[in-house]
């Protein structure tokens, strides 16, 4: 069968970095074609080229055997290529209809919102979407916003839909319906380019897969002729150990004690409701739960970023409830890896070297009498980036240019180098690829061996099951139960996550 879309040896460089190195892609009409690769493998760059947001340095794009020029998104749309970006390109205050018809180009005299809304409703219903066209987009949940993005493309009669990491913004319960949508699009004869780093998703929904690594294509396969292990190897470049080895724990006395915490969220609503637990030295306590049930507030409360309404916090034997953030960090050796690594964890506009000394800014050996010692700062950065395998060109590079996994490594390096007694990590693997997840988890297990008490907050049950000694489940601001991994059956966890309580052990 003829290739509907053919990318021929596309190359794109940013500075010294070859983001795409002679990448070719063959996509058949009416298939779901996955582009699989780690973060930073060049998938998004390739798709941005196809969508006209970047201009390739070399290479051709062909549709139905004819070479086409794509200089901007408008050209791409004219050729029937549309893209749903990882971060949605929707305009919050505008309605669904306004977002969909934006850029269509007609309506200079009269927009005709009512007629558009009617046609949109019909289209939306024919694909089984249940969307109110007059609703402002910001009011819709992420899953719905994604459907608006897809509608935008369908309304323009797009044939080829590029979906960039479409499941990364969805909750587990939204993913299933999303895969059904993909099925319906395929039935309607659409071709789908599915960009992802999640192996299970490729196996579940894709017909064919192109694997990328370091800006190159490493394989083109049919999904029914491969398996996750092979894909992982092609993607990471080596065998990936799926089962992380967690040795027998050696637990010491309680290092972090939380008693009856109460706190409010940013909107002033109760976020933590009488939360109590203990984490022992050498133990990883997981906090599981559906996102937004108080986990983020818990981490912030412990780190000192969120005021408490009631409750006590102890590190070892010392009460730190009233200690400042700085005291918690330096005197009590409490380290914190925040969930939002880009906005809270790092200063993206500054160099990696600078980010690595954020904890000890203005202190020896990086400063003497208040004057920065750049030699020491750089030496520290070189040593840490090497030890933690941070991939970068230079330690003076701005943190924003690192991939998500490498950014997380920088944060971990900074926090762990201080030899913490307690480590609070919030969603450390969010948005990371398998290689980086493995690295993060092994780093945490190393710290556990060293006797650090670790609080590991995650919405990914698999990750929690893999590394945690005990699992606390949160629901609506309460700890509904604490289990050992052996007792933590999916049914039990599901019930606790839904709010059923059991005796806290």
């Amino acid at each position, binding site marked *: 069968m003829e290739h509907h879309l053919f990318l021929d040896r596309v190359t794109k460089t940013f500075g010294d970095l070859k983001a795409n190195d002679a990448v070719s892609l063959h996509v058949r009409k009416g298939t779901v074609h996955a582009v699989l690769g780690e973060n930073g493998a060049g998938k998004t760059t390739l798709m941005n080229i196809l969508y006209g947001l970047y201009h390739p340095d070399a290479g051709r794009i062909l549709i139905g055997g004819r070479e086409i020029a794509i200089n901007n998104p408008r050209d791409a*749309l004219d050729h029937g290529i549309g893209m749903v970006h990882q971060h949605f*390109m929707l305009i919050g*205050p505008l309605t669904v209809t306004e977002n969909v018809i934006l*850029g*269509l180009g007609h309506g*200079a005299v009269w927009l005709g919102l009512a007629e558009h809304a009617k046609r949109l409703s019909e289209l939306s219903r024919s694909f089984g979407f249940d969307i109110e066209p007059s609703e402002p987009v910001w009011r819709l949940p992420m899953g719905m916003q994604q459907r608006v993005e897809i509608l935008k493309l369908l309304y323009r009669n797009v044939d080829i839909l590029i979906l960039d990491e479409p499941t990364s913004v969805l909750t587990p319960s939204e993913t299933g319906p999303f895969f059904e949508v993909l099925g319906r699009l395929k039935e309607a004869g659409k071709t789908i380019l599915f960009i992802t780093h999640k192996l299970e998703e490729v196996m579940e929904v894709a017909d064919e897969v192109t694997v990328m690594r370091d800006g190159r294509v490493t394989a083109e396969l049919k999904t029914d002729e491969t398996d996750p292990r092979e894909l992982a190897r092609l993607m990471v470049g080596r065998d990936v150990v799926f089962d992380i080895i967690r040795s027998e724990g050696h637990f010491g006395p309680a290092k972090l004690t939380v008693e009856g915490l109460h706190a409010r969220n940013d909107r002033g609503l109760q976020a933590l409701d009488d939360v109590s637990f203990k984490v022992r030295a050498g133990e990883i306590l997981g906090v599981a739960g559906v996102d937004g049930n108080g986990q983020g507030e818990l981490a912030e409360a412990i780190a000192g970023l969120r005021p408490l309404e009631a409750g006590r916090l102890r590190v070892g034997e010392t009460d730190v409830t009233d200690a400042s953030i700085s005291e918690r960090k330096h005197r009590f050796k409490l380290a914190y890896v925040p969930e939002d690594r880009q906005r809270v964890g790092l200063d993206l506009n500054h160099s990696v070297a600078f980010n690595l000394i954020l904890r000890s800014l203005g202190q020896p050996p990086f400063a003497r009498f208040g004057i920065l010692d750049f030699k020491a700062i750089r030496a520290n950065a070189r040593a840490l980036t090497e030890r933690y395998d941070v991939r970068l060109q230079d330690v003076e590079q701005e943190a924003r240019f690192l991939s998500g996994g490498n950014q997380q490594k920088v944060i971990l390096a900074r926090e762990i180098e201080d030899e913490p007694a307690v480590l609070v990590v919030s969603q450390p693997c969010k948005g990371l690829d398998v290689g980086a997840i493995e690295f993060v988890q092994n780093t945490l297990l190393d710290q556990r061996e060293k006797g650090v008490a670790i609080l590991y907050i995650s919405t990914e049950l698999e990750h929690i099951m893999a590394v945690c000694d005990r699992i606390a489940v949160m629901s609506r601001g309460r700890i509904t139960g604490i289990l050992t991994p052996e007792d933590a059956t999916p049914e039990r966890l599901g019930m606790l996550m839904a709010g059923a309580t059991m005796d806290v052990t």
Partner: protein
Amino acid sequence: MMMEILLDPTMLSDFLSTSLRLSIPVVFAALGGVLSERSGVYNIGLEGMMLAGAFGAAVGTFFTDLPIVGLVTGMFAGTLTAVVLAVLAVSLGVSQIVAGIAINIFSIGVTSFLSRIVFSGQANTMTLPGYKAFAIPGLASIPIIGPVLFNQDALVYLMYVTVPLLFYLLFRTSWGLNIRAVGENPRAADTAGVRVNMVRYLCVLGSGALAGLGGCYLVLSQVFLFSEHMSAGKGFIALAAIILGRWNPVGALLACLLFGLFDALQLRLQFANPEVPYQAFVILPYVVSILALVGLVGKPRPPGAVGLPYRRESK
């Protein structure tokens, strides 16, 4: 004194009429600001563009004795000044605040300098032809508001048309949708195929033309001559009106009318109380604008991307 005004229909009409006329230049400038800020570009330079417009109007009328020519040259001068903002803020990505302030300072200097050359010292003595008030038959005889609204000059009537036109443009046409989208989230607009920087250019230029029109009104309908720095802060009042009017042309109009009302009031108070230093009254509209901004019910939400330059290939 307030009671007198309120009770006597002629005095009331007179007072409201003055309020309306005082607000007109601010209305045009504020409409320009709404247009520009809706597309994501702060126009702090409204004051300077208004002044340039006033100068342009004076020059055009001075050489031809035709106010209509002055109107064209005035709007052109405002637009020309806006080109500077567009190039600096849209193409070069310079801070929009700094660019706007620069335009204001530049405009005061250039118009003062050029006016001395063009009018060679007689700027304060001569009188230019302009637009005189004329009554619209029928409508003007409605009690109280008739003479206020319908016994005005051509530029006031032009304002009546401009406000709904701008509202229609912003909220009922695809142009307006593009403008609002570009001002909220330029990247999203770009991916939908909107030419972000072109939209911003047009809006900034349009903004300059409207602010220039405000300047035209000062010369052609109010004082019939050009004097140095005659915009006297009206462009800044317009900035407050934009926020108070929530980036909506109708809202901005109402805000400007409020300021006009207090401006007229302070004039009355000045004349009625010669023993009090006049500065005490002059500050009234400015104080009101500050109080109005402070006392706003709810937090105003400016367009999401206002103030931020847009670049496509930035990661």
